[in-house]
């Protein structure tokens, strides 16, 4: 049931992406941006319904698997984009973020084999787990949007410095806007990710009986946290523009790389898999 609703949401995302991309191609038709915004809101609501139904069906265990994680993360990304559009009114960003949401959501529509435990073990049923899952996914979603904004920055900088002033020059927002957004997204993402890290350690203490276990998931998360922390610091010492944009993209590549490695190499991490707490 939740899958059907999710497919429906994907249709709305497809509509959103189409509207934003068309707006990007034909910026004079401003109505397209408005259509995109409304479709996005609709997609977000339908997606929320799908998640709600999923929780009813699987009791929240769903989000322990990669598939559920992606479903939830795309929803958070859509929510972030929605707020971003309301705060900054830069529909050009929709043309980059909306297609990505769709692309990430697509595999979850067909990969229906449950990759999560049937029932969540008693030991992990805590509010702290909910906080951990939501903040971790939101952090990654924010980093993803930040890296797309950084890509837009680099594209626009190439136009401005290369004295090309072509189609992209006209369609992309100003460098200042993109840089500012990038910075704010990274900063917010870092704060959220920090909460994820703390709550994650808390959970490790409960489940594994120790907050730090040298688990690969823990190590990579800490490295990523340090990188983003450094970026937030560098900002204060005047780092911005091109170098900051490249850093944002590089850091996100690391995030994706670690998610992929840890999820597809079996047995590397006990994260989200071993709740026994027996290893000693």
């Amino acid at each position: 049931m939740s899958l059907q609703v999710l497919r429906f949401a994907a249709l709305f995302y497809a509509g959103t992406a189409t509207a934003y991309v068309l707006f990007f191609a034909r910026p004079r038709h401003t109505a397209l941006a408005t259509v995109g915004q409304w479709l996005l809101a609709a997609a977000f609501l339908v997606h929320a319904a799908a998640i709600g139904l999923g929780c009813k069906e699987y009791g929240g265990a769903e989000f322990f698997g990669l598939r559920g994680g992606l479903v939830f993360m795309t929803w958070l990304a859509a929510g972030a984009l929605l707020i971003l559009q309301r705060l900054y009114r830069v529909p050009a960003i929709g043309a980059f973020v909306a297609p990505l949401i769709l692309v990430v959501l697509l595999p979850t529509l067909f990969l229906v084999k449950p990759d999560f435990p049937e029932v969540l073990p008693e030991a992990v049923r805590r509010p702290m787990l909910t906080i951990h899952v939501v903040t971790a996914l939101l952090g990654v979603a924010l980093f993803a949007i930040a890296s797309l904004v950084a890509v837009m920055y680099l594209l626009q900088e190439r136009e401005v410095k290369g004295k090309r002033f072509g189609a992209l020059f006209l369609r992309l927002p100003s460098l200042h806007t993109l840089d500012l957004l990038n910075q704010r997204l990274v900063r917010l993402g870092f704060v959220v990710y920090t909460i994820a890290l703390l709550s994650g350690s808390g959970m490790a203490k409960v489940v594994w009986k120790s907050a730090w276990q040298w688990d690969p998931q823990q190590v990579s998360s800490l490295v990523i946290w340090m990188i983003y922390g450094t970026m937030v610091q560098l900002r204060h010492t005047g780092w911005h523009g091109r170098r900051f944009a490249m850093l944002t993209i590089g850091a996100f590549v690391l995030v994706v790389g670690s998610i992929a490695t840890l999820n597809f190499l079996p047995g590397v991490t006990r994260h989200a898999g071993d709740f026994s707490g027996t290893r000693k």
Partner: protein
Amino acid sequence: MKGGRDLHLVGLSHKSAPVAVREKVALTTDDLKAALSSLVARSGVGEAMVVSTCNRVECYVYGESLDEARHFFLSRTIEAEGHLYAHSGPEAVRHLFRVAASLDSMVVGEPQILGQVKEAYGLAASVQTAGTFVSRLCNKAFATAKRVRNETEIARGAGSVSQVAVELVEKIFGDLKGRSVLLVGAGKMGALSAKALRDLGADRILVTNRSPERARSLARDIGATAEPWEGLTSLLAVADVVIVSTGAPTYVITRELAGQVMKARRGRSICFIDLAVPRNVDPACGQMDNVYAYDIDDLQKVVHQTHAARAEEAIRAEAIVEAEVMAFAREREARAALPVLAELRRKAEQIARTEAERTLAHLGEKLDEKGRRSVEAMAQAIVNKLLHGPTARLKEAAASGDSDLPGAAAALFGVEGQEPPRPRTPPTSPADAAAPTEPLR
């Protein structure tokens, strides 16, 4: 066209006449009003409108010949002879449409001309020299211009150097609020660009020059603050946009200076716009992070690109104009067939009414009010049904430019097909004129 009246145009523009001639025929608003009134007072002139801008003066006349329009110019100065162009009929219509759509402008696609044509029409309407024809013509011209603006990219891009500079700065800094502009040197073009940036919201304009007097006088002129030349480095640390146009033969902003400045700015972006020849800003500055440097050639290149792109778009715009000229001609011909139709319908309805009255008189009191109304309705229905086919066909024939059928219809049904005399009192305002009354729909 029947009655021999058509649109005629005589004019001169930046393309046909030097400014020395153009300024001799240019008119003030009051002159124009008087000239328009005296134009329509002449025989053979039905309506008149004059478009007068600094680049063109054009006299449009709806009348029997273009002599009156030509006289309009020659009575002003004999020098106009040889610089005038003249068009009649569809050619004249096309010309007005092209002018309104900014296809005939010095900078193709510039937006002012449409407003100027609208003004010309408003003026003609205010002195009642623009009647039904000119109103219809102008409304079509405005619609055409709007289509061209919306459906082509003719008005896109920056058409002048200071416009390019402004667009660039906007793409770098976004909102200009809270930004400051530094003018190095007292060049005229620099001052223009600085003004344009202030109009867009830049907070502060600083001026510095080797000669403090010139800095002060320029600062007074454009409402800026003059700063001493010795403090250039610290000024550069504050300003976001730096417009450089000094007469110095070497780089005023060297790479070393830019490097120092960037350290002081802690990496905040800075944009140099170098309008000087020889250049005053080392182009190598642009290679540094968050430093943007443009010289006059870079800006000029964009202007040329814009013009080239507009020339390309102009081809599409011409096609739109062509289609609208044809549409205007078709509508006009369709209207020409309307008098025949109106007369035909008037006659038929008169017969229906007489016959219905006669029948009702015979029947007398046998019918109640409802019955009487049914008989009247029946008579009207017969007229409508009978005339439906011929009406449609006549309109069609007229629309496709066939004038034989309306004539044949007039002969067949024994009605006169002459255009009814137009009221000599034209509408009082453009809005009224925009909705011409038609004898029949």
